[in-house]
């Protein structure tokens, strides 16, 4: 899970942080990752498809992928000197059967110190 202040970074899908002022804008930052499933998990998932329900291995995969995408986005923002990424959005595209691209993007900003 992504911590609220990963390395003191603030991440939010709001356009503002209550009580804080934006002092600098750095533009759009993004992070993405393409993930495919493990063959063994794939076989298990297709068995699981007979009875239906949650495919836990895929849930974990997507979770890890999102964490990774957010982490990359934050790395880019950090390198610019930002201390927050606001207005974060996610997009997911399945590229091939069992492979998906997960994208996180947002606006890198600097908030005033509290």
């Amino acid at each position: 899970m992504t911590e609220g202040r990963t390395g003191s970074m603030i991440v939010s899908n709001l356009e503002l942080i209550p009580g804080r002022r934006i002092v600098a804008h750095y533009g759009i930052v993004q992070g993405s990752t393409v993930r495919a499933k493990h063959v063994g998990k794939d076989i298990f998932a297709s068995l699981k498809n007979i009875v239906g329900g949650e495919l836990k291995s895929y849930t974990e995969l997507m979770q890890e992928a999102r964490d990774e995408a957010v982490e990359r986005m934050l790395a880019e923002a950090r390198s610019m000197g930002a201390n927050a990424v606001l207005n974060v959005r996610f997009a997911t595209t399945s590229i091939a059967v069992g492979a998906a691209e997960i994208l996180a993007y947002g606006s890198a900003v600097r908030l005033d110190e509290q």
Partner: protein
Amino acid sequence: MADLIQLGVFVALLVVGYFAGSMIERQHYASIRKREQEYRDVLAFMVRFPFDRTTPQRAFLVYGTVVVSADYFKTFIAGLRNLFGGRFRSYETLMERARREALLRLKAEARRKGSKMVVCVRFETTTIASGWAPAMEVFAYGTALVPDDGSLRLPDPRDGVSRLLGDGLVRPRS
């Protein structure tokens, strides 16, 4: 003979899919209802902005995700249904379960990090696999708020803001 075996396997899969599938669905619904009660104190809102924008609050992104698949029986029924069109009831419950589960996981993460209010909740749905083994991902994300002074300011239902509250994300408190 080989045809007969194939047919037998197909029917067996249908039967297993039907019984195991409905059992899993019932259990899942029971678990969802139970946890919705448990997480009643964590409020989720569709509104884009916090109700109180002036008090300094800690804000952070939270999300919940779930990948679900239909059982063999549901997939088969949906295949038949495709010929005639109309409502895919079997898939409707599947997606509903997934949405509620994703929202619950979002609330769970918010609570684990000390927040009781999530605003700007958005849902996103992705097809991960289709055809005979369909799998869908439902992803819910939002911004969890923790007021610095510890007080949680809720909107007054008498002011206009309550009209903006969204889509059953706030479940009745009684």
